[in-house]
């Protein structure tokens, strides 16, 4: 596949002796929206965090196998560099409380001491906040701290912060599970717009969300990638019995 952006080859992840992600092989193409779903503890978040090498930051966490980003194995690259190249949005919105909204958006540059001209900074902030559908709401309070923002707005700020780094790939770890329904739909609407410029991998606990937003869906169960297919296909006629059981609510 020439248009592949992420490819996992025999990827395994462990917490100590606990084999949490088992032999995953998956290929994801550019500008796709991929949902990763499965019951609690199935390894989907662990797999996601293996892509941008956040997994190994946990004590006793190890990984085997390859994950290729644009053909290069991330485990052969500089980990800091990998994390800068891949964006991540977390379950709980986590803007930096000691920085203003403006500073939060360009935090990736600020905290790394990367020199950017004021004009360029302004441009990045406006573009990122616009892409995150937050510009109009905050453009007059850019220099205030973001603590007055609602949950949904804070999450969109975090998305803007990730976008500002100009990644090709953005990872989402259950991004709406801590949000109310209205904020959830505003973030889901965002996925649709972001797709044009980015590849999105979204771990979700919510089957309906997976069905709503993604092109293809991956189903994880007990550490294994059980099935990976077109979303429509997966939800109407899944190939594996386990997928069928999950979709019909036999277990969650």
């Amino acid at each position, binding site marked *: 596949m020439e248009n592949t952006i992420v490819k996992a080859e025999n990827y395994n992840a462990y917490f100590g002796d606990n084999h949490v992600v088992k032999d995953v092989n998956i290929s994801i193409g550019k500008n796709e929206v991929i949902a990763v779903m499965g019951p609690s503890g199935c390894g989907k978040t662990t797999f996601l965090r293996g892509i941008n090498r956040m997994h190994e930051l946990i004590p006793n966490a190890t990984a085997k196998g390859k994950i290729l980003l644009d053909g290069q194995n991330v485990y052969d690259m*500089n980990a*800091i560099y990998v994390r*800068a190249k891949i964006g991540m949005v977390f379950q709980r919105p986590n803007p930096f409380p000691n920085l203003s909204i403006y500073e939060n958006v360009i935090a990736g540059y600020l905290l790394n001491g990367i020199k950017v001209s004021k004009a360029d900074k302004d441009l990045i902030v406006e573009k990122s906040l616009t892409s995150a559908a937050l510009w109009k709401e905050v453009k007059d309070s850019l220099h205030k701290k973001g603590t007055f923002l609602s949950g949904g707005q804070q999450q969109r700020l975090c998305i803007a912060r990730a976008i500002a780094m100009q990644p090709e790939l953005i990872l989402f770890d259950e991004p709406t599970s801590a949000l109310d329904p209205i904020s959830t739909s505003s973030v889901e609407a965002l996925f649709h717009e972001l797709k044009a410029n980015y590849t999105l991998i979204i771990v979700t606990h919510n089957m309906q969300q997976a069905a709503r937003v993604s092109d293809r869906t991956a189903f994880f169960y007990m550490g294994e990638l059980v099935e990976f297919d077109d979303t429509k296909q997966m939800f109407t006629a899944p190939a594996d019995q386990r997928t069928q059981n999950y979709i019909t609510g036999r277990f969650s």
Partner: protein
Amino acid sequence: MENKRLDLSNSQLKWETIFKRVLVTMSILLVLIILGVLATLILESMPSIQSLGIKFLWGKIWDPVNNIYGAYPFLIGTLLTSFIALIISIPFSYAIAIYLGEYNPKGWLSDLLKNTIELIAAVPSIIYGFWGLFVLVPIVRAFEMKIGVAPYGVGIFTSSLILAVMIIPYASSLGITLIRMVPSPLKEGAYALGATRYEVIKSVIMPYTRSGLFAGVLLSLGRALGETMAVTMLIGNTSAVADTLKNTIFGPGNTMASVIANEFTEADHTQYLSALIELGLVLFFVTVVINLIGKRIITKFTNN
């Protein structure tokens, strides 16, 4: 642009390692400091340990002029001042803990009392000593005349009084935390059976917090044992041992800490100095052990 970013990340990786090493080094430094303190104390008291042996601990004569050294007067002084101070301070510490922990945990009056207690802990010991010297000593002198002992004014009793005030905050602040930690269901169960407030405190709260409060007493004791300046100024600085307990308490004496403070700079020969250091070593062990036991009880208590 990409290469610049990669170069940055590569140099950052190096600095990451350096930073982590610095953190580790500083933590190791802490261990080295303690080991260093222990090593220095042992090394410098070696001459005394070797020549006097264990008899040092119950030797009753401290006569540097004739090179005779015995720690007994100072052990007595330390034990008496600390325990008398403890006994005096415990009712007050407990009362404060019960009041602020159970009767009145919130509100302006409780904040006022809490701040007062913290203020007591904040006042430097030298100021307690100075005040004691000019105000407490004459009062004690008058008292001693009344009860028919030699009116020194200074002495173990006076030091114990000021020490008692100084150590109250240590047991009380721990006590407040512990009493507030007693689970409500436990207390409510007793109230539901018709118990009065006093009975709930006596039969539920006190037994529950018993070991923790004991730890608070140990911490107060640790503080008392290590106190130097206020005691030095009020204890009279004698290394002789009195004949009766009454005369000991109401007469001058010395603690391990005060004799070191007074005589360290006058110790002109090795034997003398190392005997003093040996006292410091004993003091070190005793205070460390008591503090650690206290802290261990607290962690066990708070983990339950």
